[in-house]
């Protein structure tokens, strides 16, 4: 999967796993965790994003919001948010 995300924006950490922001459109990944406070984690969980869930990336333009499909519904995520979501 190509690096669409600018490392400077994502904190540049080299990971074996990647952030959602770096995933190509049309791919399917699995959620590992969210690097954020409990409020954000809670909101994402309420939308269905909890560890282990499958995420289909519908559209990722590389530096704008992403559209993903999770548990049968389409969700839009800001780029910053996608950077915090770690997937495999």
């Amino acid at each position, binding site marked *: 999967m190509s690096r669409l995300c600018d490392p400077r924006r994502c904190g540049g950490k080299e990971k074996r796993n990647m952030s959602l922001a770096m995933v190509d459109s049309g791919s399917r990944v699995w959620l590992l*965790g969210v690097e*954020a406070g*409990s*409020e*954000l*984690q*809670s*909101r*994402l*969980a*309420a*939308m*269905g994003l*909890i*560890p*282990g*869930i499958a995420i289909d990336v*519908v*559209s990722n*333009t590389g*530096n*704008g*919001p992403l*559209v993903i499909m*999770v*548990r*049968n*519904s*389409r*969700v*839009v*995520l*800001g780029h*910053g*948010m996608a950077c915090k979501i770690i997937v495999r």
Partner: protein
Amino acid sequence: MKEELAVALAGNPNAGKSTIFNSLTGTRQHVGNYPGVTVERKEGHCRHGNVAMKVIDLPGTYSLTAYSAEEVVARDVIIEDRPDVVVDIIDASNLERNLYLAVQIMELGVPLVLAFNMSDMARASGYQFDLEKLSRFFGAPIVETVGYRGKGMDELLSAITATVEAGKKPEQVHIDYGRELEEEISAIKALVREEGALARKYDPRWLAIKLLEKDKDIFSKIKSDAIMAQVKKSSSRIEKILGEPPETAIAGARYGFISGACQEAVRSTIEMRHTLSDKIDAVVTNRILALPIFLALMYLVFQLTFTLGGPPMDWMDGFFGWLGGAVGGLWPAGSDSVLKSLIVDGIIGGVGGVTVFLPNILLLFLAIAVLEASGYMARAAFIMDRIMHSIGLHGKSFIPMLIGFGCSVPAIMATRTIENRRDRLTTMLVTPLMSCGARLPIYMLIIPAFFPKTWQAPMLGLIYMIGIALAVLSAKFLRSTLLKGESVPFVMELPPYRMPTLKGVLLHMWERGWLYLKKVGTVILGISILLWAMTNYPGLPDNEKAHFDKERNIIVQTRSEDDGEKAAGLAAIDNEESEAALRHSMAGRIGHALEPLLKPMGFDWKIGTALIGAFAAKEVFVAQLGIVYSVGKAKEGSQSLRDKLQKNYPPPWSPSASCSSA
């Protein structure tokens, strides 16, 4: 059976809750506000057989945590108001996520009924539900509904009454959170039980779970140090053993429960493929096409409101003019009655000024209702998000700002959809900078007065640009200083496109329009009366009045036969008298007092006076200015007023720059 059942409707946004609410209550509903928060409160009434019900439409939420005002309100209504039944409206084609809320309502221990809404779409997507089994899993009867067709309403109402009749407190269906979590829950529960007051109101197990979830609202309600200490201990234990914080573990367990239930009771026969929505989205959110399509749609909306709204506005204007005349006619001609002036000028003038906007605003609301119902609004916010982000705002801020070009009042009301308080405040503060429709008459007056023909159109464009630039700068400034803070991260659901229903859209439009009428009607009515008083009192002292009367007599008695000239002369005196009266009045004096403040801007007391009137409604500025310059009832096309303005406030490049103001 009780006299009137209290039924609360809960559910995810976009699950069709409002449609069902409208189906059940029709026009017997009432929209207001929850005290202290800008969350809408909707209540209505309906009957089923001989049972009367009060239906409360809770705000749409994805869960019952404490992270947004909507969620806290929904939760509080269920806990404090104790409705007899809570109906969770579920989007059946999105079962798992929708059930997340159901599970949390379940844990509150209230009688629950589940409505599997949009069941036609779910069927079409190939889903088959074993409702009996699911019903047992969740401890609640399940009714299939198709909200926008009004199907299933009777069955839903029957299920509600049946649930209440069954009477017994529902045996709480407990989710097993797994050994480790359950251990900690028990430990906390024991301590909570000892804390008498809290345990009576809230179910101890629910409290324990919420505490482990670090629920802010519950945290603030706990006074006992012992409990908090235990919660801390439990949290770190969980984190160590399970490798994740309790909040995530709990969420995971909930979804695990839901998945389990669905695996047993839901069959999917057709694979989800590219639905029509995705195809539309491919065009609408396409990188190149998105913005032009969006701008085209916005242009369409504006055309709709202003061209379609034009004739009704003129009609309204005429109506109020007629009304003023008719009511005024009740007094003998030339009467100086205070009451007449109050009613005709103050009240009818004031209310008329505001109500004249109504057609425009209703049309704007109609357009917004259609865009929202069809699902396009969500895409619009998404498309504008990146641009908004660079100013420090939200994608959702764009809509109110756009509406602000038409009228600031509904624009500010539209900011309700922005959850984050700081974003919302910033948007509200910045929106009025967008040149709203009421300023057009003022621009039309001033621009031709000061600029030669070729410059006029570009000037108008420039003013709009300046407005936008100011808005952008202010937003940036506000967000980096006074209203600093993390912008709420952008997470939003994209509902599938839907065909809006006529009934739903009209109801929505009327709801918002009525609120506008009520609020603005009362506030502006009050201000109009106040302003009327300020511009008419204190009146001209008698000796001055006598002076004007004398002048009038002179004209009436001149030997000239030219009636036109006489009339013009009389009119001129009337105008002079008005000007003198205005100068003498409260408003005029305030204008004078403000003069030192306005002088640096090149304004004088006359403009100051006009500005005061403009506080209530900007168009009043033109009329007031006309009075101040004795041109009588001035309209923006008034050339004489323009000439006077030019003479009195010469721009630096005009030849008469050497003249001082009159």
